[in-house]
């Protein structure tokens, strides 16, 4: 990362002694974690967080409910402070309404007879969900692994046509980390899979295949040189973007950046996923165009999800609303319909 002249922290190479080995969400920092860059970045981001926290506490003062309006939308885009995150996600997505309308429903799902096949499929992934997060260790108390099992099981029974699909483990895991509450996580899953996202996780994965193609169409118009490169090297969008959509950028982008994206995802809907993808691609188009083969292109697409551009989440979130240019709901709806029929025709 470039050294910033106005950095508040001394870049003395001793950041490793000052920064925790585990991040605020319970993730252990990797061996090659750059403590110096992190400290420098945080010294600036903390100022942003403090400023936002003051604004939010004024906004939220004396309120237990929030109304969606332009001001709130603007606030959400600038980041929801962690203390309000669960509440705003619940309110903005309609999850809170569902929870209130269906008291005891979550518990009843857990109490009912379980499909053994579903249980087995979920259990296969429990140890493979965030093994690097201390809250998911069997020894941790409370252990989020048990909560993860419950939320996935309840959701699988609530929506049997989806059941369980890999990727949902990571999403439920993030929801638990933020809400620290199984029932809220369950209703947020319901909001995401039932209303906010297209059918990414159903057995046919038609929504996923569609959105991958839609991304291709948008890139073709907005960043034609990259589209050319993809065609030239025979790279499908599945290869580079399926994880982006399925995991909603978890384990693709840094944790804090993912949470900032999710703030907007719950408030504004799935369009935000395209804004993120287009920004990553647009900002790094020179790198992608340098690629000379399919493996090179895939490598470039991995590389663009790392580094200062995505670490600096506050700037990144400003960029996603400017860098890709306009993206209207109507365009997206139309593209989705076109791509969807094309895929259905090809598969039949």
């Amino acid at each position, binding site marked *: 990362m470039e050294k910033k002249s106005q950095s508040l922290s001394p870049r003395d190479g001793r950041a490793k002694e000052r920064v925790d080995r585990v991040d605020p969400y319970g993730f252990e920092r*990797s061996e090659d974690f750059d403590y110096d860059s992190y400290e420098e970045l945080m010294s600036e981001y903390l100022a942003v967080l403090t400023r936002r926290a003051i604004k939010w506490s004024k906004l939220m003062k004396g309120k237990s409910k929030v109304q969606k309006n332009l001001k709130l939308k603007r606030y959400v885009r600038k980041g929801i402070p962690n203390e309000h995150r669960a509440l705003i996600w619940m309110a903005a997505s309609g999850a809170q309404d569902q929870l209130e309308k269906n008291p005891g429903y979550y518990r009843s799902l857990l109490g009912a007879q379980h499909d053994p096949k579903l249980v087995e499929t979920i259990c296969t992934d429990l140890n493979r969900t965030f093994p690097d997060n201390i809250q998911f260790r069997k020894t941790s108390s409370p252990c989020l692994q048990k909560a993860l099992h419950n939320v996935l099981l309840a959701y699988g029974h609530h929506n049997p046509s989806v059941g369980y699909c890999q990727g949902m483990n990571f999403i439920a895991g993030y929801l638990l980390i933020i809400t620290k509450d199984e029932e809220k996580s369950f209703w947020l899953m319901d909001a995401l899979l039932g209303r906010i996202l297209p059918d990414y996780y159903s057995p046919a994965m038609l929504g996923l295949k569609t959105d991958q193609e839609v991304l291709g169409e948008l890139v073709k118009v907005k960043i034609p040189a990259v589209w050319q490169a993809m065609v030239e090297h025979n790279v499908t969008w599945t290869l580079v973007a399926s994880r982006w959509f399925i995991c909603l950028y978890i384990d693709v982008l840094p944790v804090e950046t993912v949470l900032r994206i999710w703030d907007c995802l719950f408030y504004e809907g799935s369009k935000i996923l395209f804004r993120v993808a287009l920004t990553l691609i647009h900002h790094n188009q020179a790198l992608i165009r340098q690629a000379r083969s399919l*493996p*090179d292109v895939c490598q470039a697409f991995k590389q663009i999800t*790392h580094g200062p551009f995505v670490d600096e989440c506050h700037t990144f979130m400003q960029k996603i609303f400017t860098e890709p240019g306009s993206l209207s709901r109507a365009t997206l709806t139309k593209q989705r319909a076109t791509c969807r029929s094309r895929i259905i025709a090809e598969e039949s």
Partner: protein
Amino acid sequence: MSRKKALKGKGGSKSPKASPSSGRTGKGLAAAAAPSSGLVYPSRPSISNSGEFYDIAFKVMLVGDSGVGKTCLLVRFKDGAFLAGSFISTVGIDFRNKVMTIDAVKVKLQIWDTAGQERFRSVTHAYYRDAHALLLLYDVTNKGSYDNIRAWLTEIHEYAQQDVVVMLLGNKADSTHDRVVKREEGEKLAKEFGVPFMETSAKSGLNVELAFTAVAKELKHRTMKEPDEPKFQLQEYVDKEMRTVGCCRS
């Protein structure tokens, strides 16, 4: 704040490119390998994207049920490591390269790792078509994963090339206490379908190198065989080199 991951093959896209397939030959994902013969045979050595030189390249795919250990097997082969409890479920499709030396020839294997869950197959089966070899895994501690092998083979026959090299691997062979599929059952199934078989353990390393070496040898012989050279006998080679659990023959 950011959870950085080791960026594998860093600088790959900055390294000088000597794409073996600059004269691209049409269909499919024929990037590292030309489609029909499966041969990439540049007049001078090429550089893989990790910067290593190689003579020929092949595409190998790991398939099998979710949780049988595909990613672990690949990481053991690629990095020689097995870190219990450090793996996350594979979502979608990904690949890693490894260059091996087979009879003085540098062979690059581009190894594709896929999500095992059934619904992902409709996303990944398009990639079987260009694979030169498929390593089909089951887990010796999971009967279901063994029972599904027939379905996997049907899928492979439907989507893969006719002459694709298929090898059946019974993974997690180190788990003596939890084993529910006998070695003989794996052998029987492999015999029925006429594919080579061995048991592996990504944890102990048992036969991992061998599985990839055998496949690489077979593919290399197919493409570089001298007219008077006898055909490479994959099964014989595997039988000779294979180690069994608890056996110290090397």
